């Protein structure tokens, strides 16, 4: 055995562990996606199938569905590690907890956000969105879903020690999702009018940049409180 300090290696091993575990229990990846799909299916059934109407409400539906299905995986983000004591081991490691947290959030995005980005063309098709809006949908999901993972992880960290943390977590996190929802849907809306939506994307990007820096600190202090 030898000591081998490498931030990258530590990040990678936390990330790989979470992704590997998710792939071993495939339901973890598939179920939120199916949920996403079903929620989107419900809207035309409830509101009516007129293509024009669907085009009009599609951005909102896709994004509300994305918010909700992200919430599904969040509850599990730290739960297993908290229950089996891995979280304590991460705290008592020579690496900063923020690093491990960053890796875990990245893993959560890989298994929950990324598949949504990849499947976005399918949803756009279902909701009668045009090509230019499709691009906007994919781009907003690409920038927006990591933000959802970061903000959501704060809620997950705060509630991991509570037995019935799931609902409480949604209560804490959903209001914080509002800016993401507003800018993302407006970007898609703007694109459907063939207007430039770079401004909204830039704002989403700026929020993501802030989240990458600030959220791991908030998440790790939340986890320290939960573990104590």
């Amino acid at each position, binding site marked *: 055995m030898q000591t081998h300090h490498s931030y990258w290696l530590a990040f990678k091993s936390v990330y790989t562990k979470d992704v590997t575990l998710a792939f071993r229990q495939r339901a973890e990846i598939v179920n939120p996606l199916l949920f996403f799909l079903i929620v989107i299916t419900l809207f035309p059934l409830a509101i009516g199938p007129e293509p024009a109407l669907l085009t009009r409400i599609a951005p909102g539906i896709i994004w509300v569905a994305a918010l909700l299905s992200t919430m599904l995986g969040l509850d599990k983000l730290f739960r297993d590690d908290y229950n089996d004591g891995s979280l304590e081991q991460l705290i008592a490691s020579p690496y900063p907890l923020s690093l491990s947290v960053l890796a875990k959030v990245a893993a959560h995005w890989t298994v929950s956000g990324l598949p949504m980005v990849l499947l976005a063309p399918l949803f756009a098709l279902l909701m009668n969105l045009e090509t230019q809006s499709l691009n906007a949908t994919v781009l907003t999901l690409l920038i927006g879903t990591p933000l959802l993972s970061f903000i959501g992880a704060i809620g997950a960290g*705060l509630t991991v020690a509570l037995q019935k943390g799931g609902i*409480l977590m949604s*209560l*804490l996190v959903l209001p914080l999702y509002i800016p993401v929802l507003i800018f993302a849907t407006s970007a898609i809306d703007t694109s459907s009018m063939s207007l430039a939506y770079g401004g909204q994307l830039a704002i989403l990007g700026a929020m993501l940049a802030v989240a990458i820096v600030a959220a791991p600190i908030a998440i790790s202090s939340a986890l320290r409180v939960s573990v104590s």
Partner: protein
Amino acid sequence: MWKWLHPYAKAERAYQLCNTLLPYFAVIAVVGLLVGWVWGLAYAPADYQQKDSYRIIFIHVPSAIWSMGAYSSMAIAAIIALVWQIRNAELAVISIAPVGAAMTAIALITGAAWGKPMWGAWWVWDARLTSELILLFLYFGVLSLYHAFEDKKSGGRAACILAIVGVVNLPIIHFSVEWWNTLHQGSTITKFDTSAIDPSMLWPLLINIVAFAGVLGVVTLIRLKNEILRCEQHRPWVRELVNRG
């Protein structure tokens, strides 16, 4: 031994400080509300456009201002609590939150009651009202997180973290909602043109704003006293205090 006694003295001192401050806030609150309400309801002239319905401004604006003010003071207390690890600041966070939530609720109810005669609907997705609604959710989040923890020490720290996260997000939420509102051009009628406000209306409004600050202070101090007592209830000084009064 002395180190042991030190924090008790601190809590006791904080309790006494609350007691000293309480009468000042109480006087501001009672006199301010009395003068502000009578002036606002009976003596201020009616608005030429909105007639007497504008009088709701004398409680809507103060409660809206202090709903935000309470959240910021809560977040400042939370930062103090986490950075310097001061337990009393943590208790202050927990004490302010319900009062802030009450202020927010008042702002929402009065906003709706004002909206009905002005816009013809109880609820309009106006930027300011929507922001207040989200603020109410944030308050509920802090409160329910605190109460979900069995160990109140962890609960207090968790609530502090959430309050700080919330205060970072609040300007973003506010900005995004304002922006969303102009985008959809819903109800952009401003309820009250603040730049052109007549002094005869401005004075009672200012008095009410100060009075609401007094109310916020009074209730927060009472609640803070309770919280200090609750976590110090086994200490000798609390027992002495209870025996005395």
